[in-house]
């Protein structure tokens, strides 16, 4: 399986350094905006995870206000989140691909990569260190100044000190090349819209001109946090399956010092150094009492024919059950060594069963959501695999076949939405009320639905009139509580809104109308790398349509009530205008001096119309 060829490896930091355009750091304008996003989202996610109502403060200051853009800025974001433990800080911000967000549940960012990218970008453009201040207990704060060693993907700590503080939380400060004159409106929009979709957070932004934008929390309850769940078979691909197999079946314990200590303990040899054959004798006697990882190590030792001393100087490279070969790296000799395994041996069988892994049905029901033993059996029949097929022995072709079958089997239950964290109708409504102060407001949260094995939930709100000053329909789009600010032209939400015949809902001309759309999913089907517009998957489009339909019906009934009230006023005005004229004309016609007493006709309410 593993090949002996060597490639020039680059560190993840190096990779991102070379491909920073992909992550949104292509120019000073875009980079400043992206850095803001990454830092704020990091803070919000951290608070969400710990159930803390976020209070995020951001500031952008020019290093030299006199210089023209693009120039160096200091971006600082401070939150009241859980902070990061002191010893984790260097790794968390000083290496790329170190994150706590691996796992299948809804979150703003996926792997915490973005913040590190922003730090990397800052360092590249200004060669200034990152300053991290973190306090997990609200008493002691660790302050680090550090740089990233790009080639080694390792942090370089320049300074570390601790001091006493009064509040827990994390503060990041970087210096980076940016263009606020161009990115400013984008950033302000982002802060505004983020506050709208995060009504339980207080977000403050001090901009380089000294203006403060502050949005205080509207609600004090947080949406229930999502649970991490196993993947749904429809949402799987070959690579994911391969990774799942790796962590179930090749549970070959790393034979390091800790493991050797454990093995000695279980064998009752903690302080004794025995020879290889003595160890194996002991093993046979104690076999039944041994834990599974220890059994595996012992099986390996039986073929390696080493004692603990020698074992500690090797690392297992490959266990090739098919060819009955075991390969290890010998540190002493600095070379790979292969030994044959006797297929008749008791230990070989032990090893094979571990390496070949569990049966297909057991794998499916244990590792996927919504798959029970019965469904697993049905699926095996559908996919033309034996239910007891050992997944560890699957060839590449078989894996592809398995993946295809998993994606196309229709009898799996719909994905579990418990991994989603919609905002909820009430917070959305309160947020919109605060932001727009409309005459009419309605919100809806649709039930969970799924596309391609990924669950999603649509939330939508509609607001009309009141203090809404915009003319024409304004759509705010959100995905996983992130505002989508650009490329709206091709977005599925816009498509659904534009396909609506608004005149049917008594909305005419350029209405003061705001629509807030929030799509929550473990995977948002973005159209482009820019992650600004959502592709028109039929399942999503349908849910959006239904959400909009239910809201526009409510709007329609509001509009017709309002229309009736307006018409009544208009009618009253008509009568007040024309009846006196009629009185004036008929007085002269009739040859009278005094006008008829018509006043009561105008003031009396209501005038019942006569339709002819």
């Amino acid at each position, binding site marked *: 399986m593993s090949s002996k060829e060597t490639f020039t490896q680059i560190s993840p930091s190096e990779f991102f350094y070379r491909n920073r355009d992909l992550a949104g750091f292509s120019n000073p304008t875009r980079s400043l905006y992206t850095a803001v996003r990454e830092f704020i989202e990091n803070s919000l996610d951290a608070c969400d995870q710990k159930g803390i109502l976020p209070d995020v403060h951001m500031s952008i200051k020019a290093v030299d206000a006199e210089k023209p853009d693009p120039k160096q800025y200091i971006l600082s974001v401070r939150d009241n989140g859980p902070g990061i433990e002191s010893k984790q800080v260097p790794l968390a911000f000083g290496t790329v691909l170190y994150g706590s967000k691996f796992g299948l549940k809804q979150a703003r960012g996926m792997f915490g990569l973005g913040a590190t990218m922003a730090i990397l970008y800052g360092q590249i453009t200004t060669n200034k260190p990152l300053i991290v201040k973190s306090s997990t207990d609200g008493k002691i704060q660790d302050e680090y100044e550090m740089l990233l060693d790009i080639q080694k993907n390792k942090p370089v700590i320049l300074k570390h000190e601790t001091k006493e503080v009064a509040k827990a939380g994390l503060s990041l400060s970087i210096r980076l090349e940016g263009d606020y004159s161009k990115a400013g409106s984008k950033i302000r929009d982002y802060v505004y819209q983020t506050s709208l979709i995060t009504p339980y957070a207080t977000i403050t932004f001090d901009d380089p001109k000294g203006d403060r934008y502050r949005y205080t929390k509207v609600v004090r309850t947080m949406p229930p946090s999502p649970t991490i769940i196993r993947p749904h078979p429809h949402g799987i691909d070959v690579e994911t399956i391969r990774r799942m197999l790796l962590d179930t079946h090749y549970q070959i314990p790393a034979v390091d010092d800790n493991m050797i200590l454990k093995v000695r303990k279980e064998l009752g040899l903690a302080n004794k150094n025995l020879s290889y054959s003595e160890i194996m004798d002991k093993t046979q006697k104690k076999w039944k009492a041994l834990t599974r990882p220890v059994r595996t190590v012992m099986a390996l030792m039986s073929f390696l024919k080493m004692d603990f001393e020698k074992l500690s100087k090797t690392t297992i490279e490959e266990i090739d059950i098919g060819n009955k070969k075991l390969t290890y790296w010998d540190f002493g000799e600095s070379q790979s060594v292969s030994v044959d395994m006797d297929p008749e041996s008791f230990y070989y069988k032990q090893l094979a069963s571990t390496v070949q892994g569990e049966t297909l049905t057991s794998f499916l029901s244990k590792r996927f959501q919504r798959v029970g033993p019965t469904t697993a059996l049905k699926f095996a029949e559908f996919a033309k695999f034996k239910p007891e097929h050992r997944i560890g022995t699957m060839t590449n072709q078989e894996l592809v076949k398995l993946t295809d079958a998993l994606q196309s089997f229709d009898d799996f239950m719909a994905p579990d939405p418990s991994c989603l964290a919609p905002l909820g109708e009430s917070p959305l409504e309160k947020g919109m009320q605060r932001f727009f102060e409309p005459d009419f407001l309605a919100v809806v949260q649709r039930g969970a639905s799924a596309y391609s094995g990924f669950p999603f939930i649509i939330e939508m709100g509609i607001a009309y009139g009141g203090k809404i000053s915009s003319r024409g329909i304004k759509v705010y789009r959100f995905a996983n509580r992130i505002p989508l600010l650009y490329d709206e032209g091709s977005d599925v939400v816009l498509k659904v809104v534009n396909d609506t015949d608004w005149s049917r809902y008594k909305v005419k001309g350029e209405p003061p109308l705001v629509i807030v759309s929030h799509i929550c999913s473990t995977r948002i089907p973005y159209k482009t790398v820019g992650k600004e517009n959502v592709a028109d998957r039929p399942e999503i489009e349908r849910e959006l349509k239904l959400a909009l339909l239910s809201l526009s019906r409510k709007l329609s009934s509001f509009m017709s009530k309002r229309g009736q009230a307006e018409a009544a006023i*208009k*009618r009253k005005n*008509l*009568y007040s205008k*024309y*009846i006196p*004229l*009629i*009185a004036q*004309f*008929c*007085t*002269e*016609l*009739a*040859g*009278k001096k005094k006008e*008829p*007493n*018509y006043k*009561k*006709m105008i003031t009396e309410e209501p*005038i*019942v*119309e*006569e*339709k*002819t």
Partner: protein
Amino acid sequence: MKKKPKKKVSVDKQSTLADLLRKHGAQIYDDLDKGNFPKFSIPSRSVSNIVYDKKIRQYILGANTAVRSSRNSSQLRSFTQLMWLAFFANRLTSQKKSSTLRDVYYSSQAFEVDFEDQAESDNIIVDLEAVLASPRESFHVFPEERSSVFGDLTIEYTVPGYQGKKTNLSDHPDGYAIGPSLTTAELIETSAEVVIAVEKGGLFTRFIEEQVDKKFKAIIVDTGGQAPRSTRTLLKRLHDELSLPVVILTDGDVYGEHIAMVIKSGSANAAHLRGLTVPDAKWVGVWATDIEKYKLPTIPMTESDIKRCHDLLKDPRYQEGIWKKELEVFLKIKRKAELEAFSKYGLTNITDKYLPHKLELAKSL
């Protein structure tokens, strides 16, 4: 010399109209005073309510009426406008002032009755005609376009400043414009024995130059194309009050034929009005059959001429006599001729030859 019996017809008419206006005004006044929303009943002028009355030989309105109520907010404005017009008409007639369609529209602007355009005010004027069953001339709204009259006819003005003053309509060689003062004048006496209405001003002048009035004892009227209603009223009065036969001379085409028909029996547009028609009037030419007979130079009929021909053939008034026959000939030859076509045979040919012939023929029509 014909003398008209001394009877102040038009003055009577005026007083009836004034009564009618006052009656409507008083009714609405009472309604308002009692707190009721006043309404008007207006004869419906929709196509479905226009029927041809064979007895009086013109289009008339059927029995359908539309109610315009001030209680209905969508009718309130037009109700007010109609009310204003009645009020304005009352001022015009009581103060003996004249107005035109355009003048009415602009006058309305001082009263904030919100006519959107002149077409809307014109329409309200027709509404009032229908309510009062009188043409707008009776409430002193006259056409802008002027046609003319010439011949030995003595009239006596009734308009303020000219009351009692007499004029003979042969005193001025350009003829007299048929305006408000002439329309309301008393017809005193005439030596004429026939009224000749011609479609065109050019020919009218020629007739005067050739002394047609003297040669044929005629009053010559220029209709200026389709005769305005004041001209039709004058023709009717000449016929009814002075017992003069009316003959009509038009271009030799389908439109000319219809000009004659409108003088004779009115138009569907004026179905709500009586007293505008001269049922005994005679169309003497130029007929389609004359084109052949007099070998007149012609031009081809256009597509719209032909379409008009087919339309008129469906009209109940064109179902018999020369009316039907001439239309059919037009359709057959598909050519038409102008009155001026006779100048091919000399400038006076039409008065020397054609006219005497046709006047003679008219007696037998």
